[in-house]
């Protein structure tokens, strides 16, 4: 299809791994994950593994529980059942900031940038845990402070440049156009040096040419940083073209799993999206 090989191999679970990930432990291993809000079961029995350099997608109708799954993976919510192994470590009871340090970063469906700060500072906040500078050195502006700031600035500019945002580095994040904000959010997430990055509807509100650029960037991110990407998206063109494995959820449960080709022809998926055939006819 294109230069990005789609050669997938079966692993122990029902999941697929890219050929190059074979034999490596998964970056994310989710087992029987579930959460209830009051009496309502929002997610139930969610299982998947993601290889270290896999791009996978999470799709499903509105209200299917996709963002809730992201919130569970990043410890915004604590699961009622099941476990999440991030690089082999169980994240049970950890805070969001702790799991980020373990290697998971994300973007948000309704963009959450630090609006009053510049784009550069947004990325530098993302790099927070990479900047080595003690509290005292920060407080007294010791030489180590200047050294670490210099390094941080260079690294942040590099990242901004990578996402094509170098020329807006000094602008306030809140004043940027929507599409640029989305890319800046990805940039900030990358800055925290993750092993896997979760993108919540990265193409929402983008025009077709921006979306095409985004698709290219998503692959570049994986290839350059050798990390896994897990994304929620409604733009099927993007999902089918970029993702190597896809999970479909509806009413909080997995209804299908597989390669884009398999998903496209899965009757359960078609039903979830279009309704039962006879209903459509009627």
């Amino acid at each position, binding site marked *: 299809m294109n230069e990005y090989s789609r050669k997938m191999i079966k692993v122990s679970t029902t999941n697929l791994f890219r050929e190059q990930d074979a034999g490596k432990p998964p970056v994310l291993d989710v087992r029987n994950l579930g959460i209830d809000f009051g009496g309502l079961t929002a997610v139930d029995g969610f299982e998947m593994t993601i290889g270290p350099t896999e791009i996978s997608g999470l799709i499903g109708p509105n209200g299917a529980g996709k963002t809730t799954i992201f*919130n569970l993976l990043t410890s915004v919510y604590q699961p009622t059942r099941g476990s999440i192994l991030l690089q082999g470590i169980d994240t049970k009871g950890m805070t969001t900031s702790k799991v980020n340090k373990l290697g998971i970063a994300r973007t948000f469906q309704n963009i959450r940038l630090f609006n009053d700060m510049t784009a550069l500072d947004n990325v530098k906040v993302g790099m927070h845990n990479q900047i080595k500078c003690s509290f005292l050195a920060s407080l007294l502006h010791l030489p180590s402070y200047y050294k670490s700031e210099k390094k941080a600035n260079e690294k942040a500019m590099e990242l901004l440049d990578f996402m094509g945002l170098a020329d807006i580095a000094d602008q306030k994040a809140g004043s940027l156009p929507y599409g640029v904000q989305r890319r800046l959010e990805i940039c900030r997430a990358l800055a925290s040096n993750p092993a896997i990055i979760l993108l919540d509807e990265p193409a929402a509100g983008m025009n077709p040419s921006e979306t095409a650029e985004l698709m290219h960037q998503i692959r570049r991110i994986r290839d350059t940083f050798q990390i896994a990407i897990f994304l929620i998206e409604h733009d099927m063109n993007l999902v089918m073209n970029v993702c190597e494995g896809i999970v479909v959820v509806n009413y909080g449960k997995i209804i299908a799993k597989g390669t884009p080709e398999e998903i496209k022809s899965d009757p359960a998926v078609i039903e979830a999206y279009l309704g039962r055939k006879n209903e459509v006819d009627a």
Partner: protein
Amino acid sequence: MQVLQYLINGVSIGSVYAIIALGYTMVYGIAKMLNFAHGDVIMVGAYISFCVTNYMGLPAIVSILAAMVVCTVLGILIEKLAYKPLRGTSSLAVLITAIGVSYFLQNAAQLIWGTAPKSFTSIVTFKPFSFADGALVITGEVIITIAVSILVMVGLTLFTGKTRMGKAMRAVSEDRDAAQLMGINVNQTISMTFAIGSALAAIAGVLLCSTVPTLQPTTGSMPGIRAFTAAVIGGIGSIPGAMLGGILLGIIETFSKKYISTEFSDAIVFAVLILILLVKPTGLLGKQVQEKV
């Protein structure tokens, strides 16, 4: 018997706190602001009542009505002049303005009535009731205070539950924008809230000064803070919460003064507040709000 005596006294002072706390909580619920001038409205109410009885020689009931009218007008004026222009901006800006209003009221009172404390004549004229050979004494003030606060609470519950205006108030406090879209006059509802809160403050002022008869420009501050604490204990924004918080606070205060330490009663009251917030971060009857991600 002694315990019962303190309990009754505690409920009595707690009832006053509850009436003041209602003003804080209603305003917070609707305007989402901490109205730190509320305590000073109490003081104004007490002064008006004092003037009407002592200078004009009119009966107590007239003085209470006069205080309620003046405070209602004052409450509406304060809202229109000082708070309304800032609606929708930072809540901190409104807080500071409220403090400005509080300074203004205190200093205006000082200018009009002087700093020297006035001795407030109790509105209650009948004698205390004595039980069990004087082991249990219930003063007229206690009876009136508890009776009035029950009346106020029942009245307010009926008002917010049954009347159009009361329902509008609840709607505005739940979601101001949605209420507006449903055709509720938000400005009028907010004015009404301030009016009711201030009228209650006038009643509280008279009751407070009947129990503790020294009246000076700073009379309202400490009960104001106490009542605010009560509102938070009950869950700020919740009307039954304010009642519960007020009465609880009154009982805790009275008992800690008698059984633990008079000197540290302030510290104990505030420590209880902190403990309650640690267990229930939004107060006893407050709503838990989760941020959507």
